[in-house]
């Protein structure tokens, strides 16, 4: 009975829970309720993943209306994998949230804050679950609006301008997507993704379809923070509350990558893919190198990680650019692994912010000895970010390099390796300041972060190590997902 409605419950449960959370009083109660909701979501998402892992597809008709007229939730391995990432990150972030939110958010806003987190979760899960392009737009806006609110909750006043900037860029992106959807609807008269795929094939040469495609790709690229449309991202990640940096860095852009894959490969999936693959490759190459260089010169740890995120997203875009089975597998695996490493890193930085009150690197001096657990978390997650063998980051880089070699693209292989070298520099920068610099004498003793912050961080750090050895879940599921995308090009 439940299994039948699994795909819908994943969206409906947090949706109903959000207004309830908003009405709960105090600090603990809304937190506890949100925590239980995210764990239920994780349970449902893992269940859903276990059902479709073997390559089967769940099709759920909303309200009993048969597709393509009604809205269809169509779950294959790719949706289930991304939904699992989102739910898992939410479930790990929430235990972390209690102490961090107590410190950063005033009490009267706490319940609303958690309600906004749940709404953001609804949006992200909804985007992943739905098989209807307009429904996708609506969920995208739900998640975006709630994330603007969440970013604006940051302590510094620059959080407000960061949220405003993101609101403007995000709305332009979403409106572009809306224009694109309108144009392809005008051509085909349908909104269902699979139906669109069928009906677009014979009219692929129409100029309206081309225009719609361009609007859709640019719109999603804004949400994806694809270089050079990434300008909103560094401020948004830097000034938002620690919990939100963790949650958004690990989920929001990943979901945007999913939308891009769905739109380009499921909805359009033909001659137009060739056009985008050149664009993705060029932007990917530039996007790996330039943001990595910017990351090296940052003086704020969160901003450094934000620039590194843009570079990592560019790796995913490179994988899409290959448009091959290996390339897309690398993209999906990196979506998963990057969520793990960036989640862990932002959590560790959040733990330092909890103790020190600032994420500026100058305040990190000598902290490595005083906060050894936090420091080693940063070290291991940093190694994963670089792509050292034995960590999750290595697996995705490995597949990406394989994909590049398969197409004998030496330039891109070189770029991927160069990106890793640059990552060594910026990760080393944090390590050097934290471990090898003496503690300034003016600073009072700093204690290790509380256990409720450390345990979630270490859960993600261990996941980084676990998925560095066990590739069954990541690579196999990603492989199944790519096979279902029907990529035939080499």
């Amino acid at each position, binding site marked *: 009975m439940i299994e039948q409605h699994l795909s819908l419950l994943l969206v409906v449960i947090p949706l109903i829970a959000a207004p309830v959370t908003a009405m709960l009083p105090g600090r603990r109660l809304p937190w506890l309720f949100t925590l239980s909701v995210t764990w239920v979501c994780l349970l449902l998402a893992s269940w859903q993943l276990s059902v479709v892992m073997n390559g089967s597809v769940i099709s759920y008709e909303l309200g009993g209306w048969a597709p393509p007229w009604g809205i269809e939730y169509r779950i294959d391995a790719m949706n289930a994998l991304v939904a699992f990432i989102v739910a898992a990150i939410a479930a790990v972030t929430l235990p972390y949230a209690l102490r961090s939110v107590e410190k950063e958010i005033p009490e009267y806003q706490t319940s609303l804050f958690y309600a906004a987190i749940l709404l953001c979760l609804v949006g992200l899960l909804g985007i992943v679950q739905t098989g209807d392009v*307009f429904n996708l*737009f*609506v969920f995208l*806006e739900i998640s975006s*609006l709630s994330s*603007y*609110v969440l970013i*604006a909750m940051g302590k510094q*006043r*620059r959080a*407000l*301008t960061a*949220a*405003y900037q993101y*609101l*403007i860029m995000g*709305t*332009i992106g*979403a*409106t572009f997507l*809306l*224009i694109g959807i*309108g144009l392809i*609807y*005008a051509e085909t008269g349908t909104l269902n993704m699979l139906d669109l795929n069928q009906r677009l094939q014979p009219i692929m040469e129409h100029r309206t379809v081309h225009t719609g495609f361009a609007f859709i790709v640019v719109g999603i690229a804004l949400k994806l923070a694809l270089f050079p449309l990434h300008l909103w991202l560094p401020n948004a990640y830097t000034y938002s509350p620690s919990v939100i940096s963790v949650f958004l860095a690990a989920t929001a852009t990943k979901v945007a990558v999913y939308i891009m894959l769905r739109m380009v490969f499921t909805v359009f999936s033909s001659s137009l893919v060739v056009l985008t693959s050149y664009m993705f490759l060029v932007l990917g190459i530039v996007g790996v190198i330039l943001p990595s260089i910017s990351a090296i010169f940052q003086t704020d740890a969160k901003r450094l990680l934000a620039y590194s995120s843009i570079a990592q997203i560019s790796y995913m875009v490179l994988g899409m650019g290959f448009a091959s089975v290996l390339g897309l597998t690398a993209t999906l695996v990196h979506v998963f692994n990057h969520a793990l490493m960036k989640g862990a890193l932002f959590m560790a930085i959040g733990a330092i912010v909890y103790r020190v009150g600032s994420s500026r690197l100058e305040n990190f001096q000598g902290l490595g000895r005083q906060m050894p657990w936090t420091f080693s978390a940063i070290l291991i997650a940093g190694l994963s970010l670089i792509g050292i063998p034995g960590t999750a980051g290595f697996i995705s880089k490995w597949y990406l390099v394989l994909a590049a070699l398969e197409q004998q693209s030496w330039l891109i292989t070189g770029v991927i390796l160069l990106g890793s070298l640059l990552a060594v520099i910026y990760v080393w920068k944090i390590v050097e300041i934290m471990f090898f610099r003496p503690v300034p004498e003016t600073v009072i003793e700093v204690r290790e972060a509380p256990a409720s912050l450390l345990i979630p961080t270490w859960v993600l750090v261990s996941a980084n190590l676990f998925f560095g050895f066990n590739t069954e879940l990541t690579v196999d599921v990603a492989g199944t997902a790519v096979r279902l995308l029907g990529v035939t090009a080499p």
Partner: protein
Amino acid sequence: MIDIIFGHYNYWIVVVLMMAGFYTVISRGNLIKKIAGINIFQTSVFLLYISIGYVEKGTAPIIAEGYTVYSNPLPHVLILTAIVVGVATTALGLALVVRIKEAYGTIEEDEIHDQDMSL
């Protein structure tokens, strides 16, 4: 030629509004004007959808005797949703502008930038 200009005048209006709104968002430094620009930009998309749903000589999509040609109701329904989203975005954007005004004492982008840089 005449047909392209006058036969599709609704689409021309959409294009002009879209570009005007988009240009306002990009070029203006005043945060409220930017929101107004976003609004115009979104409204042009609403008009685009409504134009798509138009059927020549069609009536409102209500079943009644003597009428067989109806407008396509689906784009109208879609755009109702998009209007709600647009209202929410505007409300949130204006709320942020109020908070920015309280924090910085100005809503001009360059003055806010100067204040951030001078820290």
